[in-house]
């Protein structure tokens, strides 16, 4: 029974039969040359003048990572290792530590990333990390032109990733995903938790 069903969903393609003319490839070559000549004489250049003219990058582009800051400027990441677990390229490495409880600035936080490194060379920019993040701390920005002179330079640490956040916030190039709506309850700080609950049907609620 299930076999029959499966077969119906499979579409079998047939190899197109070539006529003698097609098999010579000459018509195809001729049409290709014609296209090239048409472009050459039309006067409409399609070459991008990069890097003098930078391309418009869509805001949902998945480029260099950033680590977001919370309202108080602290790193938003809670070191839950979800991104490291989800990462298919094993390029994220976190070392967690208890938040400095004596510091009044960190009083409401239990755990934070003492180090957070991403190997930007090993990363495949799939976006699984930001999907896994329960507090929306890691995001992929639309920065696409990442270069470096050494491998070491391309291993981004926590401060570097935070500076990417500062840079993108300043330039107004936040990823669209930042504004997708109400965050999960896990990302609430003590201050926001006391606010009225979001209207039903919006965002994730636990």
């Amino acid at each position, binding site marked *: 029974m299930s076999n029959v069903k499966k077969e119906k969903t499979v579409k079998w393609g047939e190899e197109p039969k070539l006529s003698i003319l097609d098999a010579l490839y000459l018509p195809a070559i001729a049409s290709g040359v014609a296209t090239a000549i048409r472009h050459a004489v039309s006067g409409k250049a399609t070459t991008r003048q990069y890097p003098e003219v930078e391309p418009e990058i869509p805001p949902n582009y998945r480029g260099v990572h950033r680590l977001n800051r919370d309202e108080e400027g602290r790193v938003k990441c*809670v*070191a*839950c*290792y*979800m991104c490291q*677990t989800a990462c298919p390229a094993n390029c994220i490495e976190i070392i*967690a*530590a*208890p938040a400095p409880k004596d510091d009044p600035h960190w009083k409401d936080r*239990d*755990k934070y990333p003492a180090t957070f490194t991403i190997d930007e060379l090993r990363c495949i920019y799939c976006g699984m990390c930001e999907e896994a993040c*329960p*507090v929306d701390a890691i995001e992929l920005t639309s920065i696409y032109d990442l270069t470096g002179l050494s491998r070491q330079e391309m291993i981004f640490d926590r401060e570097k990733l935070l500076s990417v956040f500062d840079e993108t916030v300043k330039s107004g190039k936040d990823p669209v995903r930042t504004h997708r709506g109400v965050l*999960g*309850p*896990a990302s609430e700080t*003590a201050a926001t*938790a*006391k606010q009225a*609950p979001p209207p039903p049907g919006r965002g994730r*609620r*636990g």
Partner: protein
Amino acid sequence: MVKVKVNDIEVDADPKDNCILAARKAGVEIPHYCWHESLSVVASCRMCLVEVGETKPDGTVAMGPKLVPGCQTPIKEGTVIRTDSAKVKTSQQMTLELLLLNHPLDCSICDQAGECYLQDYTYKFGKAQSRLDEPKIQRMDKYHIGEQIALFTDRCVMCTRCVRFTREISGTSELQVVARGSHEEIDVFPDEPCNNKLAGNVVDLCPVGALCSKDFLYKKRVWWLKHAESVCTGCSTGCSIHVDQAENKVYRLRPRENAQAQGHFMCDEGRFGFKYIHDERRLSSPRYSGAVTGSKGSYSNARGKPEDLSFADPWPEALKQARKRIADEIKSDANGFVAVFSPFMTVEEAYLLASFLKGLDRRVRLVLGPVPVVGNDDRYPKGSKGEPPAAGKEKFTIRAEKCPNRVGVEAVLRSFQGEVSRLESLLRQPDARAWYFVGGYPQGWVTDAIASAVGKPSLLIVQDIFPSPLSDRADFVFASASFAERDGTYVNHAGLAQATHAAIRPPAETRADGRLLMELAERTGLFNAMALRKEIGNAIPELSVLAAGDLGEQGVRLARYAQQPATAAT
């Protein structure tokens, strides 16, 4: 045995079982928080509510009118348990919803995430949404609960397992429930923290992430850890344990349930006493006196450049030289060759060394090295004044003998030379010319008496994990492995032979003792504990139970000890 029906599955159950255990035998999980096999029953969490009925003599089934807690309900012939009815499922959902009312959604920073019963049961039996629109109650974390324990108060589900543990197993009663109703909290009396020697167990007992181990806090997410079944080497109780490691580093030890060995628990001494295996003072590579570059005993590599030693494996040459020196010494004076066996050796290692040396000459003397004994056996539960329990009432015992395998090593020595002599008896009139010392002790073990009695022998071989006065002047130093790095068998004080499995690899240029001794004895093949156990079982009558090879998770009791009742089986 009585016949019980669980969700239409008929099983034979022990009449002493409760509904949870009977259902477990049928392969049906009844979720529970407050009930634990070795603690008293309080039936307070209401998670295990099930429908229970009985079979009437005429064959009809009469179900009870309301749900009953499975942990508290005994079974009898014809008991019928239903866990899959709509009534039970609704009750489980409601119980979980209530437990989660004020439970913070901080799984992302909770150490228990991944091995949390609240997570697991919510996934299996709960519902995905909370209907609570009020802000959750937030409580202060309590880091003062104990030296090793932190309490994240708002994660607690008030199962009181920890409270009952300190009352019933350790007998120290530090933890209490304070206040009532929704203000209930676990707490200690002011300045009376929970620091008893079994305190670490409350972290394992806690079904949620309320009680966390400060030692392990935020060190590793549990899903990265790999587990090896092992045996604690802290004392001769030989608790069954799990060694949890990631990337070749041991992060924690957890007790593994074994009624024959220790029950459900382990002591803090053992639990946190593993740190020495990552000590940087450990011996890192073999060393021998002849090893001078360019002269005899130099390292050599394929390219034949003596100055480039980076790829050379020092072991084959060290073992070859040692083998030659041992043979020479035994040839000149076999009676003057003494091998000192450590009670930290596994049975297999003791057998390998004994059979190697006795194979060279029967007159070689084998002695048992120092057996560390600290104080007296520490028995639990303690009474109200801290006194130990009456004999036979023990629920857990920390033994004074701080080594895992004296019984096993003695059995091997007895079979090779009829009697077990101690190193101490030899020290009074040292007449040995050559020594083979095996260490493996977590702390320094070479006393002045030993060091001076050894003096300047013509051959001194030390196989150990830490440098000592003996290793400093030894002709050969074999850097060996800690308990977490080797396979083998330990026999505890009650004659229970348990298999231990390597959790991590030994450091780069050290060798697990079994492999080292296999190569020293020039035995063919690789070290395989299971194959060796079969060989030992056939060769040594006292250890004949090892002939099975596989000792299972619980271990096997030696024949001479088989009559004794299992101690501390809770």
